């Protein structure tokens, strides 16, 4: 009665259900919508042609993300021979147009996220955003678990620095205005 359609089907039929997450992961690597979609397209073709290497019953999203990141880094290596610094130029392009407070906050967040080095963006996209375990992410990136952990931690710490400057000492301070007032008050004491 509860037959799992994913098991009985051609695994290629399942590809379509992973397009959304693939686009999100690609965007966190490229920080540019058009580039991200080109990356998804190339990865999709690779996945289709190498579908035999997918082991049914395993996590298809992990498999696809691995293909996607490998494709990203190989394109990047090729490009870095042509461009001196492929990173850091497009920072900020990821941001979305702010419509209301929630979106503004998100746009600000994306701006900060785009400033992180690619290894940290990757670690956070896998562990923080997609819900992979550190072990899974380490497998997908071909590095040690400790490496993924430290990349994610450094990324988080940097985001806190960028988004909440001077706020790290105030544990329950989520309102920036309140924090600004407190900081202004604290300044007098600090300089004394």
């Amino acid at each position, binding site marked *: 009665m509860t037959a799992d359609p994913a098991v009985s089907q051609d695994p290629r039929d399942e590809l*379509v259900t992973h397009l*959304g997450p693939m*686009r999100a992961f690609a965007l966190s690597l490229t920080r540019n919508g058009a580039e991200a*979609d080109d990356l998804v397209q190339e990865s999709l073709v690779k996945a289709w042609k190498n579908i035999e290497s997918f082991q049914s019953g395993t996590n298809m999203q992990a498999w696809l993300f691995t293909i996607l990141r490998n494709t990203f880094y190989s394109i990047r290596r090729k490009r870095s021979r042509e461009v001196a610094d492929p990173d850091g130029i497009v920072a900020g392009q990821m941001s979305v147009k702010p419509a209301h407070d929630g979106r503004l906050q998100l746009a600000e*967040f994306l701006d900060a996220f785009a400033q992180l080095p690619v290894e940290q963006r990757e670690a956070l996209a896998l562990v923080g955003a997609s819900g992979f375990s550190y072990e899974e992410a380490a497998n997908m990136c071909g590095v040690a678990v400790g490496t993924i952990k430290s990349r994610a931690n450094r990324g988080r710490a940097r985001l806190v620095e960028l*988004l909440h400057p001077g*706020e790290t000492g105030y544990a329950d301070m989520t309102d920036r205005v309140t924090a600004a007032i407190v900081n202004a008050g604290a300044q007098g004491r600090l300089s004394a």
Partner: protein
Amino acid sequence: MHNEQPSSALEDQIADNLRRAFQERASEKVPDRFLDLLRQLRTQDETHHDS
């Protein structure tokens, strides 16, 4: 180790934003080019099998 860690409220907020940013993109309508591509790949395969 503990004193270098950012406060948990800020960490939660960042984790939240991360998931939200990802979810937003992931749940966008998939552009037709990808569905077309999948159809094209399927057709190619079928043509190869027939010949």
